[in-house]
């Protein structure tokens, strides 16, 4: 399987070259979410004087942990899509000169980001344990949800990175869109405390909201999300993935000419 080998090596390249020529290297992948956590904790607790959501049934009440358990998976999604768009655009030299399965440019980003997410979540698990939540028995379920999230992210990344070859606006559009999605996802707030009905609906049932809510359920509340919710995530993940792949495969034969 030459192509699986290509995916493996491209992912490895993605991971190895990311923090080359930086002294702190991989630590940077932690500083960004940590600094965000610090900022939002200060704003949330001291500026808005809000209280952290209480985990049901875990009883955990800790805003930084709530924030991180939402931010890390969301960042995985938004970074994967953003980097994929750049990877396909930046792969022009290769695409114009060699025939190879272009989708691996995207998949390698997904794999590399997923591995990064695993490392980050391991640290979160330790922090959760210190905070009082033992998420060890919940990891298999969490992993299933994250697989669906990875499929969903791949689908969006495939679609947008292919479209971006034809219209570079997509790249800029994604910068704005991911920001809007960040606030439309329950990361810095608890949807239960919000009066704005539209936002509550989006936060609970929008695609990213659905994933983050389920992940909150598992690692913060320590309970199984409803079967309906899990089914919804499976459908969103698988459908988005195959639709994205279909779009990508239709457009990719024309990449070389467009670039």
């Amino acid at each position, binding site marked *: 399987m030459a192509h699986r080998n290509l995916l493996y090596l491209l992912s490895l*390249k993605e991971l190895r070259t990311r923090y080359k020529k930086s002294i702190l290297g991989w630590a940077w992948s932690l500083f960004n979410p940590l600094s965000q956590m610090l900022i939002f904790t200060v704003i949330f607790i001291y500026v808005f004087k809000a209280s952290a959501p209480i985990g049901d049934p875990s009883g955990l009440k800790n805003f930084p942990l709530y924030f991180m358990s939402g931010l890390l998976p969301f960042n995985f999604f938004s970074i994967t899509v953003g980097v994929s768009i750049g990877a396909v655009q930046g792969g022009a030299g290769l695409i114009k000169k060699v025939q190879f399965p272009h989708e691996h440019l995207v998949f390698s980003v997904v794999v590399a980001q997923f591995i990064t997410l695993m490392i980050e979540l391991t640290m979160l698990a330790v922090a959760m344990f210190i905070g009082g939540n033992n998420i060890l028995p919940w990891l298999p379920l969490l992993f299933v949800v994250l697989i669906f999230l990875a499929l969903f992210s791949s689908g969006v990344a495939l679609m947008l990175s292919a479209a971006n070859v034809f219209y570079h606006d997509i790249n800029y559009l994604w910068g704005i869109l991911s920001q809007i999605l960040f606030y439309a996802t329950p990361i810095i707030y608890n949807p239960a405390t919000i009066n704005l009905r539209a936002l509550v609906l989006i936060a609970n049932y929008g695609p990213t909201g659905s994933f983050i809510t389920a992940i909150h359920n598992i690692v913060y509340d320590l309970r199984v999300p409803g079967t309906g919710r899990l089914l919804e995530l499976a459908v969103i993940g698988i459908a988005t993935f195959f639709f994205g792949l279909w779009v990508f495969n239709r457009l990719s034969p024309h990449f070389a000419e467009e670039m």
Partner: protein
Amino acid sequence: MAAAALTVDHLTKTFRLHSEKNNSLKMLIAGKKRNRYEEFTALRDVTFDVKEGEVFGVIGENGSGKSTLLKCMAGILQPNAGSVHVSKRMSALLELGAGFHPELSGRDNVFLNAAILGMARREIAGRFDEIVEFSGLESFIDSPVKTYSTGMYVRLAFAVAINVDPQLLIIDEILAVGDVTFQQKCLEKFVDFRNEGRTIVLVTHAMNSVKDMCDRAIWLTHGVVTGEGDPAELVEAYTEMMLGDRNRNEDGSVRRGSGEIQIERVELFVGASETPVKRFRTSDSIRLRLHYRAEKSVPKPVFGFAIEHLGGATVTAPCTRDVGLLPASVSGEGYVEIAMDNVAMLPGTYDLHTSITDFNRQHEYDNLHLALRFDVMTGKPYETGGLVTMRPTWTIQS
């Protein structure tokens, strides 16, 4: 007859030439009115096939559609009509080192590049040593390739590409990489490939390599196949056309140049005779006489002769500048004569090309290609191979 390794069937490829390439959503939304473009046909109804084990050449001037054809064959571009069918494992070398990452070591890049070219992991591992040995970069293989010189970079890339073990190899004028030693290595590898019966498609400007290596060739002009068949004939026709087809004379010679001074005719004499001839024997003494006529005074002209074997090899190409024979200026009529004693050329047919240039050999006043064709007949000594004899003395010790 051998089966086809590659079939190109009525291939047509057009490009859209936008007056201003503008990839923005605005254009999509603003509608078709603004999206004006012209269609440009890079390839029109191209059909040919390459047989298994054949070395096939594609020649054509810049913009003739060679590269587009290559990219269509390699599967990088999609044809608008027609098809390309490849029945063998193919490797297309369009650019060396595509996908090399500067921060990664040579070793990592070998694996990555080979994977991009379609090799499986085990296969690469098995060939790794061979690749490194071929590149000659054993001691640098674990350094990042950004520390490599351009030559090293290209050598490593070529080493990977050539070791992909393709049954069908498509090459885009990249044999001319690296230093002389490395080029020799590449050429040997290429000949090995040929002898192993692999199929090779060579797209190039290097006419000599087409003549020497290819079994068959096609000639592309503005996206249309204008010739197919024997490479030597095609190259001859191509070269003549490139030199200017309008100046073809009745006797088959081709003239170009600015014309201040012109070559009237060229004559060949044997010994002291004053009768022009068209043949002589090995070891004869000959004189070549170039008659010129200058409309006005031409400063410091350089007269040059080139004797080329019919097979394409240049036997000798002396010019007056080489011996410091530099008249301050020349005008009117006259001739230049060059005498060669005891000529070492072996039997065969040869062409004589002549030229008159300025001192820097850049500007051509006149160039008469194929000014004279002559035969060398069997004389003494006689040898069956080669173009010239070194008049060897043999000794066998027992």
